[in-house]
């Protein structure tokens, strides 16, 4: 047996659809779905004589994303035409950015197993317009829907710095959080607002010699799971292929494979990447964009704390677990709710529990995000404080939160209304305890006798008091009174 060491190497090409009201170069509305060819105009139809006008908002959002990815933002950037013929591309060129993208040389930090961050380098990020869609229905022809044509896309290219399917998944999730936090994109993979194309190959050391397998680009990935599984699949497939054929990068060209989610395999789409000549040249219809340092700094000041930084801070500052911090920072609105409630005096762990257990359960049930529920930081803080003060028990938090989504009443008012306030008045509780003692002489005797039965009898009496108080007695105080009675 010869020794084989194998490392999988993955770089990503990512397309993120920007959250603008209108398309990249015209005023057509951007909405998901819609009648085919209902959201088009002369510009995105590529009609003769029409001219593109840059969507400033799209540019701003892109720069925000570039800054969040620690990229160098160019002071001078321009638009280029990328030429190729395809029916879903009405001008037969795509407006993109070639040699002078607006941002380059960045990095993104992703959480890895040990609770550390790994830095993945970003080669570049540029803006471009999306193509339409070819629709293949019945019959010996295709139709073209241009609703999507002209949608602003941010293309992000990473260096091949990832070494496992789980790292690729972590990057995808992290990038999604970032663009969602910044309001740059809705970034739903299901809606195709975020598309990942991993480039995968293996670096194999066999008998002391290094080999690199041919690069595969994987397409059709519409979930994080598909992304991770396809990379893992390629890992083993390429290793098998190498062991069987010895084929390396120098010999085989890059190929494109599609992910078949049902079968859990990648399927060859194109063997040899054609040597495309896109004949890039500067688009004469658009002016270059010149950015001053002041403007770039102004955009930088609009950035918020990024999710992973937040996550690590929560662990350090609030002593939360990695897991809890991850849950709280998954969505910007949730993190803000958490931080707001802590700011208003809620104990962090308590607030975390209310949000991550009761809150997210409610959101799930409603099929909405936390942000869409009628819950504010003040309310969450109030609930946390009531639990902390033993005014309610921890289990009551969920009921109050649920009620809060329906009314604008305060946490206290809801707790009272639902009779969730615990009786903590010692003299009132003492009366109940006395009554229970009077009614249960046998149990009282057992307690007094000490020994084995004593503990069980004390529990029995405790239960009777709680029963009398209809569950609203503060158990701590009842236990104190019982202790006093029996010494």
């Amino acid at each position, binding site marked *: 047996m010869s020794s084989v060491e194998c490392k999988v190497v993955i770089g990503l090409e990512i397309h993120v659809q920007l959250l603008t009201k209108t398309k990249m170069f015209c005023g057509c509305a951007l909405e998901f779905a819609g009648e085919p060819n209902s959201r088009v105009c*002369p510009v995105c139809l590529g009609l003769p004589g*029409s001219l593109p006008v840059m969507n400033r908002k799209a540019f701003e959002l892109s720069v925000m994303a570039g800054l969040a990815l620690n990229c160098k933002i160019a002071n001078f950037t321009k638009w280029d035409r990328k030429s190729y013929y395809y029916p879903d591309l009405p001008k037969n060129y795509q407006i993109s950015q070639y040699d002078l993208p607006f941002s380059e040389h960045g990095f993104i930090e992703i959480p890895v197993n040990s609770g550390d961050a790994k830095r993945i380098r970003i080669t570049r990020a540029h803006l471009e317009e999306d193509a339409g869609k070819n629709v293949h229905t019945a019959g010996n022809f295709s139709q073209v829907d241009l609703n999507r044509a002209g949608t602003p896309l941010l293309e992000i290219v990473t260096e091949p710095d990832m070494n496992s399917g789980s790292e690729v998944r972590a990057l995808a999730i992290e990038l999604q959080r970032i663009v969602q936090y910044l309001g740059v994109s809705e970034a739903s993979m299901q809606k195709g607002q975020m598309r990942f194309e991993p480039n995968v190959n293996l670096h194999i050391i066999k008998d002391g010699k290094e080999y690199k397998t041919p690069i595969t680009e994987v397409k059709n990935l519409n979930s994080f799971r598909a992304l991770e599984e396809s990379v893992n699949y390629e890992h083993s497939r390429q290793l098998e292929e190498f062991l069987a054929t010895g084929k390396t990068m120098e010999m085989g060209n890059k190929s494109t494979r599609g992910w078949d989610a049902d079968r859990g395999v990648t399927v060859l789409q194109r063997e040899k990447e054609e040597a495309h000549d896109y004949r890039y040249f500067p688009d004469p219809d658009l002016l270059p964009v010149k950015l001053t340092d002041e403007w770039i700094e102004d955009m930088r000041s609009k950035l918020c704390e990024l999710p992973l930084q937040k996550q690590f801070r929560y662990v350090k500052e609030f002593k939360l677990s990695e897991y809890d911090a991850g849950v709280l920072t998954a969505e910007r609105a949730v993190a803000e709710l958490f931080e707001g409630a802590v700011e208003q005096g809620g104990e962090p762990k308590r607030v975390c529990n209310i949000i991550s257990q009761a809150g997210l359960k409610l959101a799930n049930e409603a099929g909405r995000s936390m942000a869409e529920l009628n819950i504010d930081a003040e309310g969450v803080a109030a609930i946390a404080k009531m639990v902390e003060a033993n005014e309610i028990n921890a289990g009551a938090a969920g009921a109050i939160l649920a009620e809060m989504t329906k009314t604008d009443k305060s946490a206290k008012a809801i707790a009272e209304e639902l009779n969730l306030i615990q009786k903590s008045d010692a003299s009132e509780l003492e009366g109940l305890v006395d009554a229970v003692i009077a009614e249960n002489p046998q149990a009282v005797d057992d307690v007094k006798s000490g020994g084995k039965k004593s503990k069980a009898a004390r529990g029995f009496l405790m239960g009777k008091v709680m029963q009398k108080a209809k569950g609203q007695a503060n158990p701590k105080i009842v236990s104190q009174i019982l202790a006093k009675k029996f010494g």
Partner: protein
Amino acid sequence: MSDELLSLSCRKLTELIRRGEVSSRKAVEAVFSSIEKTEPVVGAYLSTFIDESLERADEIDSKIAAGKKVGKLAGLPIAVKDNMCTTFGATTCGSKILENFHAPYNAAVIERLLAEDAVIVGKLNMDEFAMGSSTENSGLKKTVNPWDVNRVPGGSSGGSAAAVASGMCMAALGSDTGGSIRQPASFCGVVGLKPTYGRVSRYGLVAYGSSLDQIGPLTRDVADAGLMMNVIAGHDDNDSTSVNEKIAPVPDYLENIEKGIEGLTIGVAPQFHAGADVEVLSAIEDAIEVYKGLGAKVVEIDMPHIDYSVAAYYVIATAEASSNLARFDGVHYGHRTAKPEDYIEVYSKSRAEAFGTEVKRRIMLGTYALSSGYYDAYYLKALKVRSLIRSDFTGAFEKCDCIMTPVSPTTAFKIGENIDDPLKMYLSDIYTIGVNLAGIPGISIPCGFDGNDLPVGLQILTPAFTESKLLRIARMFESCTEFHKRRPQKV
């Protein structure tokens, strides 16, 4: 009566219409009777809109009768080159590929003409996609020169120049990528102005060379060009390359048009005279003498890089064209081949069947120039030449107010004379092309006739966004000469 109306200037005719002394209907009828008579010989129009035009004329007349405010071109019968999109009629660009293309929107200039109450009577023939210097490259129609029906009207705005010269419209719009307004204006003895790049919106002008194309007027006199500029010049949000009016304000082009420029300095460059016919040169020299008589001074300027302008132009313009014309693919609109085997054939056959030879030649030239491995040697180098030519002009304008040159080395040539020699055809634009590369304005005005009684054009050039001054300089000559008043009698 109708001929009389058509011999008026646009300013005069619209004034009479506005005052109710002549109806717009009368003017439109006069134009259509002229079209009826002349069009069968000249062939300037690709489409005419008689019913719509009369209807619109009546609307304008009734607005005037009701005392309502009307626009600067009230009731004037005007025609446009068929590469400007209109919601009425087809927009063909003189090409079979767009023979049946009906645009769903109006070009910005069309909207401006309509907003000023012009009546658009028809759309004019041109070299296919504005590629040519004789209108012989039209895929749809043959247009002849009204001064001599055996000669070309020039191009690519040949239909525009021929229609204005022969009284088939009061004024026309053309487009100029390398001389396509000025050269036909010169061949047909009318005024043709190419404004500064960015002065007039290109929105709705079917692109040939996007960084060079500019729409401008063809008229019978200089002041009418000013009137048209008052309507079409200005910023357009839909055209990113149209210039902000805060940076370059739009003046009233008629305001000082009768005021000559005191102490005018005319730049003359030997490079701009090389290769021109003797008769053309002598007409230009005579014209400059006229200016001298008006007190102008002549200085010699050097344009060391202008000799490279044709080469640079045919790289840049064709590169842009190869990309601009990619959209004509038979998929979305325009001609589609009858029985394609697959979608690749939809492209290749549709384009092979419907594009003319010159268009194919330029698409191939441009595709080659942009191809990987050749980009630096051709496209990038052409851009460098372009900036050298620009600085040639900047340097020259430090020494003079304007530059005067012939528009073309020859007067109108015979139909078929140059068609088999594309290089010779390209060289006929040698004096005009540098102007587009530099983006500056240029005008062609009638300045004489050759031995065959064919008009000669004088080209005057001024710095960017000084069309007002350019028109005043042109008007100085026009106001003391009669060349612009001569009309072709042969048709």
